[in-house]
């Protein structure tokens, strides 16, 4: 028996729930879409905790002399 194909109209950034688990629709690396467990933006997490990113000046003062290797 042929398996029926469910056609889904999904777009990047939308959330779907499958068997109680949430996934986010994201672009894959070949021009298509895929789903993966969501990555909560750090701004949302900081807001809950009363935190904020350090300023560029503070980062330069504290970490300016750290090395970098060009990788990422």
């Amino acid at each position, binding site marked *: 028996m042929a398996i029926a194909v469910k056609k889904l109209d999904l777009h990047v950034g939308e959330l779907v729930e499958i068997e109680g688990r949430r996934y986010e629709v994201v672009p894959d690396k070949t021009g298509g879409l895929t789903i993966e467990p969501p990555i909560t933006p750090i701004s949302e*997490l900081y807001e809950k*905790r009363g935190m904020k990113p*350090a300023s560029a000046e503070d980062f330069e*003062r504290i970490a300016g002399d*750290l090395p970098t290797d060009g990788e*990422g």
Partner: protein
Amino acid sequence: MELSARDLPARFDREEWREEVERLDERSASRIQAERARREIERDKTVLDFEKCEIDGEEGTNLLGCVKQYVPLGRQGASDAPFGFVFQLAQNPDGSFVWNFIAFGERHPGNPATRTVYERAHKRLHGRYP
């Protein structure tokens, strides 16, 4: 007194850890290495050997304000240390600074469909992949 990167604590909060590390199979090499590295860092922060992340990285990532720590600790080359943590310099409500863990993953995934740790960090900072 001037602060240096090594003076500050590294923090692993619950949500980031769950999304970055606990998504991985408990028996996978990547999760085991991440959990071991976290234990080592929390026991002794002098093991940290940060490097600055790129503002214009290889995959179009912008990780301004972030540093990386290769995993396992104490190793550098991609074959010896295939994974990485990314931390962002953040300020607590009391104004103190902390290295806040934001991403974990492979540096150079063998599977081209897998996102690098830098792409995951970019998504957490900017809300989308580069």
